[in-house]
């Protein structure tokens, strides 16, 4: 189920009540959480719970046998088994159709007319997220960064824990499993702050992303006729930068709030990314748990920066291309990842070339704005459904479109630009702060008023919206 649904409201109320019920012991409360998490996942499509079980059982035993193995080769076999099973499931459900389409296209280009049956497989929601979470468990054990969990229940709950299950933050076992060892219950202040985070997250998602930004984006990116004017193309793309941030960061903030209400801590997934200066900075602020996962389990094993520049650039580009593909089974996502890889490589080269140069305040700001603009170019490939669509948008943004037409009405455009300005401005103001620090330094009447306004806006938006964009990944 999704956080912005009435079903979740009832579900969460019941979970909270059970979790705080005095007549259950900690072991039973963990079982309650596990069952609730399965119910949360089954609310999309009950049979897909089996995938969760497969992933859980295979990785549990792979880690157990890895630890018991006396030979390094046996350990490796169990690690590879885990990787093959997890990536195999991900590949089958997420990339099967993509691979088949590309194979058909390749065969066709070679003059072979191959017409396979339609690949009609539904993508299990959140499979990319929990696959990466469980993989980190076996990989950490294999790399001897972590010991395996002592109790199957704790491990199963780590995989399934509903706040992070379908859209992250992608948690590592070392971050969550220890939290299941002893009784967890939110203090009143944790509960209230957790609820406040949920209000903030849902405000971002329901009001900003779905209510005000999404219609502007759709008006241009999903237009059936005409080519947008440069202004419309830029506004739609900037609006998408806000929509994707509010959608995903909103989900993460809500998830962190939900976990906090239950007494658990989850890691930051965003750190005001539109105030990034440079792309390595951007990736330290955007989807932190994914970028750090890719760094730890892909970039570093591929050689990282320890084997000379050529290997470093290859590892960088390989990591970002696969990171792009992780987001979706389409070449547009690969190009999105490739662009980020290119940015990172160029930045790395420039840092080497101009080592020691420290930008002044104006140059710093200009570099920040340049980063934001270049990130927006990549969002075009992320949002456009085809290369043709992306090319049209880029052409319009460059002012080179033939017979462009206006597409966005004035007020929706003004709302979108105000929201984007507020988001970017807030990110710069919060650049070197945490939300908690900012909240603590704000007068309580203002904190209360802001929360009340956000809650009322969620209510007047009727709390509903579409599914989170990242669920499709």
């Amino acid at each position: 189920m999704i956080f912005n649904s009435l079903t979740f409201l009832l579900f969460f109320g019941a979970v909270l009540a059970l979790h705080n019920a005095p007549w259950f012991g900690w072991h039973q409360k963990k079982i309650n959480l596990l069952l609730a998490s399965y119910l949360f996942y089954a609310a999309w499509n009950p049979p897909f719970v089996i995938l969760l079980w497969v992933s859980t059982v295979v990785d549990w035993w792979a880690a157990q046998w890895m630890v018991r193995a006396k030979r390094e080769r046996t350990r490796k076999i169990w690690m590879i088994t885990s990787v093959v099973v997890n990536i195999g499931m991900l590949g089958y459900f997420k990339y099967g159709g993509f691979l088949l389409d590309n194979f058909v296209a390749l065969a066709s280009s070679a003059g072979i007319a191959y017409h396979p049956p339609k690949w009609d497989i539904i993508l299990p929601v959140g499979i990319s997220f929990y696959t990466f979470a469980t993989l980190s468990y076996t990989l950490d054990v294999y790399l001897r960064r972590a010991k395996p969990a002592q109790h199957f229940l704790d491990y199963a709950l780590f995989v399934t824990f509903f706040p992070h299950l379908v859209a992250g933050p992608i948690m590592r076992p070392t971050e969550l499993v220890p939290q299941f060892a002893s009784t967890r219950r939110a203090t009143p202040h944790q509960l209230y702050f957790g609820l406040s985070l949920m209000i903030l997250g849902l405000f971002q998602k329901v009001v900003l992303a779905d209510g005000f930004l999404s219609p502007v984006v759709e008006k241009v990116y999903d237009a059936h006729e005409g080519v947008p004017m440069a202004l419309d193309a830029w506004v739609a793309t900037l609006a998408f930068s806000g929509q994707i941030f509010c959608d995903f960061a909103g989900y993460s903030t809500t998830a962190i709030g939900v976990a906090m209400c239950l007494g658990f801590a989850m890691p930051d997934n965003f750190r005001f990314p539109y105030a990034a200066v440079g792309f390595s900075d951007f990736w330290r602020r955007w989807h932190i748990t994914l970028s750090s996962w890719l760094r730890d389990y892909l970039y570093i094993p591929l050689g990282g920066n320890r084997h000379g520049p050529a290997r470093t650039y290859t590892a960088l580009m390989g990591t970002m291309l696969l990171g792009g593909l992780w987001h979706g089974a389409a070449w547009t996502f690969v190009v999105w990842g490739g662009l980020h890889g290119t940015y990172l490589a160029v930045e790395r080269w420039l840092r080497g070339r101009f080592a020691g140069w420290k930008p002044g305040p104006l140059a710093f700001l200009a570099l920040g704005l340049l980063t934001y603009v270049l990130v927006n170019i990549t969002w075009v490939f992320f949002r456009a459904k085809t290369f043709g669509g992306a090319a049209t948008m880029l052409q319009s943004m460059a002012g080179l479109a033939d017979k462009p037409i206006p597409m966005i009405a004035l007020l929706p455009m003004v709302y979108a630009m105000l929201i984007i300005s507020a988001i970017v401005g807030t990110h710069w103001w919060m650049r070197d702060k945490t939300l908690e620090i900012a909240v603590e330094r704000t007068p309580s009447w203002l904190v209360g008023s802001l929360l009340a306004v956000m809650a009322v806006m969620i209510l007047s938006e009727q709390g509903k919206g579409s599914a989170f964009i990242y669920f499709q990944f």
Partner: protein
Amino acid sequence: MPSSTSSSDQAPKGIVQREGALPAGLRRTASDRPGEAQPVPTRDIPKQPWGRIIIGVAAALVSAAVALEVNARERIGLHAGDLDNSEIAWSDEKLRAAGAPAAIVGDSRILFDTDLDRFEQLTGVRPIQLAIHGTSALTLLETMADDPDFKGVLIVGLADTMFFQPFDGYGGYVKKWHEYRAPYRIVSNQIDHALQRRIAFLDSNYRLSVLAHRLDRDFRPGVEGPMDDIWKLQEVGEHRATHLWDRVEYDPAWRARTRWAWKGFKEKFPFTPQLIAKGQARAKAAVDKIRARGGDVVFVRPPSDPHLRVNEEAQVPKAKGWDVLLRNTKSVGIHIDDLPAAQGLPLPEWSHLSRKCATVFTDIYVRRLTELTPRFKLRGDAPPPLSRADCVPAA
């Protein structure tokens, strides 16, 4: 040393203590610890009077809910009991249609202009309402043709232009309606409806963003702004029983606005003979499919005001659309032109009947239906016939 995944965690430290050498007030994240086992995260609780804050937020929410409800009822004219006409609501009815004796598909005209209660009073059969506003009846006819479980009579209500248009319209989702049957969506829809039976402001047209966007009075030349769309036209009851929103009847400004939004039904694309022929062929294939398994299809053409009719006729003439459709599919059809008793029923915004007149129209066309097909029989205890006088106030 490997981190343990089985040791207990320390309680959150508060915001004073920080990890590592980061700027004051910033905590470390996984991005600051490359190639390490990530520790249990620390989450700070800012010092604030959270209890009082949450009570304040709750009070604001209650006050806002009351204000929204009063405004919705008193100033906007929304009513409790007006239910979301969502994809789930449609798919619920689609499931009920399996094995049902009759179902209705079509666009908003047959949707608004059929009073299901009256239909049942006359025939003892309550058809399943599957019509969708702004949707080609042909798309829905094909959807029902593809459902082997439907073996009843399908009443296809159509507006000529919408029937033959080359796209599905709003109800394109019916082609993948199974995808909307996620358990959480079904439950959410039930909860939505339970609340909407009591609360008027839970109308998707009354959302903050929708209202804010509609403040745009086509300020930007060349752009069709939100005001060009109709804000609200219908009210939906249980099982998708739908009628025209009463404000369209009693508020002249609202009525004028809606009439303007129809833009005279002057479509932008040409209804070429090929397009119409393609529609005819699709309709025949679908009707044959339903009849092959024992079902039947009848067509109904509800009224439209002369202001719209003239353009509809210009684009899809009755002789080339309706007449050929009945001939090709060998179907029974009830056209508004063939119902003398239904002539002159008022159409407040030119395209749909008022709620009361929808009951009269239903009475008239269902009685005619019982004469044309043995599938429907007039009940012995059917209420007396209605006429225009039952819905039009005497001058």
